[in-house]
């Protein structure tokens, strides 16, 4: 608890630290335990700590059993790793080794975590894509499929599909793009609401994420159709990619609802993908 292990960032904050230290030092028996020399970083949960995820526009749905925000000791952020130290104060947390730079480590780790965050997010997009679009043992379980949801992937896929459709169109390109984007985004939201209203047990953002990732085959199909002129080939390509998209979305959607309502939940999804498929074929 001495000054040797803490380096104040600015002289103005030294007085605050002194005050706090005096308070703590004068009453050794019954006060807070020692300040850790570096931020405590112990993951409490048994699952691997998920990195921050891209959250979309809507307000977070209050679907949690504990509505109050939860403080947790920070998961270890992929930066210059410091040795984990048991947190003496349960409620205090720290977020990253950069914050710990106030205690000593040099701020040249400033760029490192940013890169690591970027790499982590990119690898998450790739792994989510693989989970959703390719065969996967967990896809039957809506709880486990796409645990680490993120919306970057869906964002890129929707924008890409809109761009391809817009490029393929010979007239009214801007409107095609705007319509395609709005249709896909609103469609994903409405499909999710549909499942929720049917009494399904899904998480809003997870479902949005999944529907977005399932657009990937249609993206590929649209790209091929743009490059190929023959209508027959276009039809075949779109049919194949449509089937692939629907196959990818089917398990998640169907297991989320009551078996008697499966068709009610699935039909709109198929409808949306079929209409996107038609859009891809019909664009000229």
């Amino acid at each position, binding site marked *: 608890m001495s000054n040797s292990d*803490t380096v*104040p960032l*600015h002289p*103005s*904050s030294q007085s*605050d*630290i002194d005050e*706090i230290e005096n*308070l703590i030092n004068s*009453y050794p028996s*019954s006060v*807070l335990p020692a300040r850790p020399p570096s*931020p405590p970083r112990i993951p409490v*949960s048994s*699952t691997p*700590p*998920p990195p*921050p*995820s*891209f*959250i*979309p*526009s*809507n307000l*977070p749905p209050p679907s*949690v*059993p*504990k509505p109050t*925000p*939860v*403080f*947790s000791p*920070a998961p270890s952020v992929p930066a210059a790793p410091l040795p984990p130290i048991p947190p003496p*104060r349960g409620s*205090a*947390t*720290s*977020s*990253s080794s*950069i*914050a710990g730079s*106030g*205690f000593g480590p040099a701020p040249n780790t*400033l760029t490192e975590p*940013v890169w690591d965050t970027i790499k982590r*997010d990119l690898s998450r997009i790739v792994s989510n894509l693989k989970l959703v679009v390719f065969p996967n043992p967990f896809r039957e379980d809506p*709880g*486990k499929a796409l645990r*680490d949801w993120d919306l970057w992937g869906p964002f890129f896929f929707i*924008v890409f599909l809109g*761009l391809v459709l817009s490029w393929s169109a010979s007239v009214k*390109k*801007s*409107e095609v*793009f705007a319509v395609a*984007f*709005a249709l896909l985004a609103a469609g994903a939201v409405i499909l999710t609401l549909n499942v929720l209203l049917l009494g399904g047990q899904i*998480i*809003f953002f*997870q479902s949005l994420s999944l529907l977005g990732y399932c657009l990937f085959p249609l993206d590929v199909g649209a790209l091929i159709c743009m490059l190929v002129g023959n209508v027959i080939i276009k039809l075949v390509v779109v049919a194949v990619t449509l089937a692939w998209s629907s196959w990818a979305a089917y398990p998640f959607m169907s297991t989320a609802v009551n078996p008697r309502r499966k068709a009610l939940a699935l039909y709109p999804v198929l409808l949306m993908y079929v209409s996107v498929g038609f859009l891809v074929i019909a664009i000229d």
Partner: protein
Amino acid sequence: MDLNPPPGENYAHPKICFFHVFFKAAALAFYILSALFISNFVIIFVVTVLLAALDFWVVKNVSGRILVGLRWWNEINEDGESVWRFECLDQESLARMNKKDSWLFWWTLYLTAVVWVVFAIFSLIRLQADYLLVVGVCLTLSIANIIGFTKCRKDAKKQLQAFATQTIASRFTSSIQSAFTAV
């Protein structure tokens, strides 16, 4: 919050502050200028929304952590339920945070949301649905960050209060103890 930056110290993380402001300003500037120079709406949409999304990511993952020591995210736990997590630094580190950094952080966060709201009103008045779409997306991204970080800050304040009351309470009990031992 006052209108002027706190005097005395300089920015502790100038590059981070720069990026924090850069993407916001770039999105706004592109939106404003493009309406004058670029006729292709697709480009306006894609670039503006991309810049806004990058800004969202930077604020959430980088500048929030470094400038104000707050972080928020969502995770899905073992039971398949989604939990929102809000996290802040311990009190000493929070006290060390550069005041100018946090002033910049909060002011630019709120200011950009206000500007996007103004643009939304403009496009509503002009009945331009496609521009309203762009503004809507950017606005919702800003608001998401504002809500997340404000929740973090409120909990940080609650934590500070708890810390303060705990210290006062322990001081009180200790002084009583010492009073009794002295007798």
